């Protein structure tokens, strides 16, 4: 198709010898050399602007003039090839402009003006005071989320309980020595009521187990967070007010092995997958068999440190299989809890203690003081 190529030179439009790729490449290489030559002295912003206008100016720009001229006379099949090469060339020019711009700055004057606006970026940032969530609530929410992923719903119950729900239905018969382990704060003027109706501050969250089972037949999976009170002397690790998280799982064929697996899994979620658990026989009136659970010390990984008293283990939970007598009490209202047909496990832990361990809090009373010097550390 070369016979259609015009021999005419339009002003300083370079000559195009043909439309084969080799010929095009040659022609474009020549323009590229020209660009390079004209960009040799881009040391001032004026020179940069002149270069920009010379090549990319919208009306007199040389690139546009050449492309218009070449494309106009080009055969259809060559237009795409020419177009691609112009795009590459344009990108090359823009790149040169950019480089020139950054190396010269825009103008000496501008640079000076900006320099005068310089600030000390090492000064502290402006911070709005954030509220801090209470560390206990943080821990509680973390625990609830772990158990929610394992299918546990949340149940709650009253902080003032009757003797029946706090003790009797949990297999603490009246006059039983096990009641001594939970010194109780009682509401005034209860003497005239039958023992089971007398009001007291719940000493554990376990009454909510009974209340929930009375409302819902099995299968059941609940966790119960809440505030509890005991008539205990306060010291660095004891407070008359503290917080528990209780769990209950009831279904057909729930076993002690399930209890072990569940708590092992939950502790791995809380302390990491390398955490281990071990179980020791214990005694709670409302579970049988009952167990205390130790976890491998999350601070030293089990090798022994000050926090675990060099044992490598920390006692964290109480648990056990729900005692059949507890189910018998529940059955009075919810017959589905037949201990011959169903079984279940329950567990409980101190949210305060887990929180103290997690954040290195050495005095429990700090958590209930409202002292901002302490609380603000959790923002």
């Amino acid at each position: 198709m070369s016979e259609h190529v015009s021999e005419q030179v339009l002003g300083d439009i370079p000559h195009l010898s043909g439309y084969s790729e080799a010929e095009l490449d040659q022609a474009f290489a020549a323009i590229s050399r020209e660009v390079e030559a004209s960009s040799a002295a881009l040391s001032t912003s004026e020179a940069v602007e002149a270069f920009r206008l010379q090549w990319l100016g919208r009306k007199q720009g040389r690139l546009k003039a050449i492309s218009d001229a070449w494309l106009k006379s080009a055969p259809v099949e060559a237009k795409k090839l020419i177009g691609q090469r112009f795009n590459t060339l344009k990108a090359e020019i823009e790149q040169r402009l950019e480089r020139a711009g950054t190396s010269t700055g825009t103008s000496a004057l501008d640079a000076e003006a900006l320099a005068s606006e310089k600030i000390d970026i090492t000064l502290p940032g402006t911070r709005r005071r954030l509220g801090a969530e209470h560390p206990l609530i943080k821990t509680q929410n973390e625990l609830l989320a772990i158990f929610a992923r394992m299918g546990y719903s949340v149940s709650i119950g009253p902080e003032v309980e009757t003797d029946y729900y706090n003790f009797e239905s949990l297999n603490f018969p009246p006059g039983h020595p096990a009641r001594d382990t939970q010194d109780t704060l009682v509401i005034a003027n209860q003497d005239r009521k039958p023992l089971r109706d007398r009001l007291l501050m719940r000493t554990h969250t376990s009454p909510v187990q009974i209340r929930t089972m009375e409302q819902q037949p099995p299968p059941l999976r609940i966790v119960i967070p809440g505030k509890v009170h005991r008539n205990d002397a306060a010291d660095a690790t004891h407070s008359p007010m503290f917080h528990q998280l209780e769990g209950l799982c009831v279904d057909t064929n729930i076993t002690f092995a399930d209890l072990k697996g569940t708590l092992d899994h939950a502790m791995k979620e809380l302390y990491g997958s390398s955490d281990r658990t071990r179980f020791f026989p214990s005694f709670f009136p409302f579970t049988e068999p009952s167990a205390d659970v130790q976890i491998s010390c999350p601070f030293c990984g089990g090798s022994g440190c000050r926090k675990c008293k060099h044992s490598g283990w920390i006692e964290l939970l109480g648990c056990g299989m729900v005692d059949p007598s507890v189910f018998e009490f529940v059955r009075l209202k919810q017959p589905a809890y037949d201990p011959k047909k169903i079984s279940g496990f329950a567990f409980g832990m101190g949210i305060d203690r887990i929180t103290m361990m997690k954040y290195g809090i050495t005095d429990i009373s700090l958590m209930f003081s409202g002292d901002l010097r302490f609380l603000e550390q959790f923002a």
Partner: protein
Amino acid sequence: MKILSSWLREYIPGLTATDRQLADDLTLRGIAVEGVFDLGANGPLFEMDITTNRVDAMNHYGIAREAAIIYGLKLVPLSASLNELSSRAEAERSEAAVEGPAFPVNIEEPTLCGRFTARVLRNVKIQPSTGIVAERFRLLEQKPISNAVDATNYCTLAIGQPTHVFDLDKLVGGIIVRRARKGEKLRTLDGIERTLDPEDLVVADEKRPHGIAGVMGGWDSMITAETKNVLIEAAWFDTITVRLSSKRHLLHTDASHRFERGADFNAPPVASALVSRILLEAGGHQAGPLTDVLISEAEARTAKRPAIAFSLGEVKRILGPTEDPEGITAATAETILTGLGCALAKDGHGSSPHKPGPAPSLDPSRAVSIESAEMSTSDSQSYNVTLPSWRLDLEREIDLVEEIARVYGYNRFRNTLPAFAGAVVELPHAEKESSVRRTLLALGWTEAISSTFCAAADAALFAPQPNSAVPMGNPLSEEAGMLRPSLLPGMLSMLALNLNRDVEDAALFEMGTVFGGGPERVDERPALAIGAAGHALTESDVTFYDVKGTIEELLGEFSSRSFYFDNLQLPAWLHPGRSARATLDGATVAWFGQLHPAEAERRKLKQTVLVGEIYLDRLYKQKLRQPVVRELSRFQPVRRDFSLLFPNSTTWAAIEDKLRALDIPELRSFAPKEILRDAKSIPAGHFSLLLGVVFQSQERTLREEELQQFSRAIIAVMESIGGKLRV
């Protein structure tokens, strides 16, 4: 409880495990060794923590029994004879051969005292303990008193059976176990003269009481240096009577601790012999045979209680799979239960159950064990199990399941996860609660938790209804005499604590339960308190409007738009001019504002303190607001400002009402941009308001005539409430 390893080993001669190993193995079986203390050549001392249900293990022999089960070793049997080495038959013969009449004992309360043994020793020599008793007391830091008293304490430490020694010559006639008479007095061994209750069970002679049964002996018949003849009591008392007397007289003793948890019905003769042997080492002799009054009904409830049914199927159902694929076999279960002192009889296939053998005694060598040839491998094997006299905590099949798990080892069970097809259900208010908390935290309030209790004066001041506070029966302190009817007493204490410690900028909130009602019925409601002082929220001192802004944000999270603020019937703790009530759908949901200066002064708060209480139960009745997106207008908004002068009596609420009543759809928003009072340019009794208004149409660009018309309407209604356009 302190336990000497060397003493344990005396009861298990075959024990080869190291002390450390023994401590670990006991702990893994629930007989917790909390600490091991090296006593040098005397071997280590174990500090034990025995759970309240295991009274049988609160002594050396009981712990030795556990060790024997763990290692499958033989336990040295205890002797009921004065000659420790003689056989049982010999002992019985020698007992019968003792000359003289038996000491008279009369149990008047057979339901409370199930067994009473009495042994008379004459010509004893009261002196300090020597030999092994003195040595072990020294190691255990047990205070020695005299050989007679030490013998009883030694017996308790050894086998857990409390005993008592009387000076026989101070007793008049025989022993009578009876209830105390009304007004009867007894000076107990601690020297305190006590008035007995007719419910107390006492050990008396013919004239008067000489001890509260199972709790403490009497002063007048105690052993002294002059004592020549003694009576040794070893008895079995009912748990409840001992517990009630112990509580009634605030007397918690080693004896009451054991009796109220259930003592071994078969132990008194053994204990009596042990005490006698120690005492007789210093001289003296037994006079008359041992008196042993035994109430068969009590025996039938304890040592000879009926056998219980037990099946291996229940073990598997409750405990689940073990690491060892074989699991708990019949042979394993049988070995464990027999080791514990149970006697097992197989429940045949349809045939009547084998009559269980006699109750095993303290001596496990007498426990009836079944022949190994009879042992079954069937999964569903059932048994009738006769229970040991020293384990009154074992009553039901589940108790035996637990024993098997305990002795087998908890950590030998697999960790499995149960399948579950149910759904996780959120608490109805969980989302609302976390939304409220999130808003407060974002606005700069820090969460705190305060006491559930408050002082009576605070309860009276802050209770939403008068006389609705609940008093505590045994308050922790006078300042904690009431259940809190409001979170504000706690909030003010927390603010005061911070301000007194130079933390001058404080913005706290607490979400918790408040209590109302009375001793008959206590109502619990969720509440929220906020309290602030200093520059906690903005760069200037906290004002009413900072708190109101927070309240508005909180109310704004809920779906109802019909909330308003007024200052009617403000509670006494609020500043009457700088406080408000928030009402939502006609119900009060919050009180807030500046703490009343008088109240601030009473609490020695020098700074201005802003507080508020929000009734979350009422707020939670509303749904959370669900945003519904409004279409964005494509047309330019137009802003107009009006500079107005109002008399001071005009409130923003009145201005707002009038503007809303105009009902101009294009009136997109309006706000007070600036309010000036007491400036030179403003006439007295007036304030100037710069009212900023935004007009915008959803459909088109507003025309100038329309805007002028809107402006005229606004000026007209402002004038109708006393406003004047400033020029």
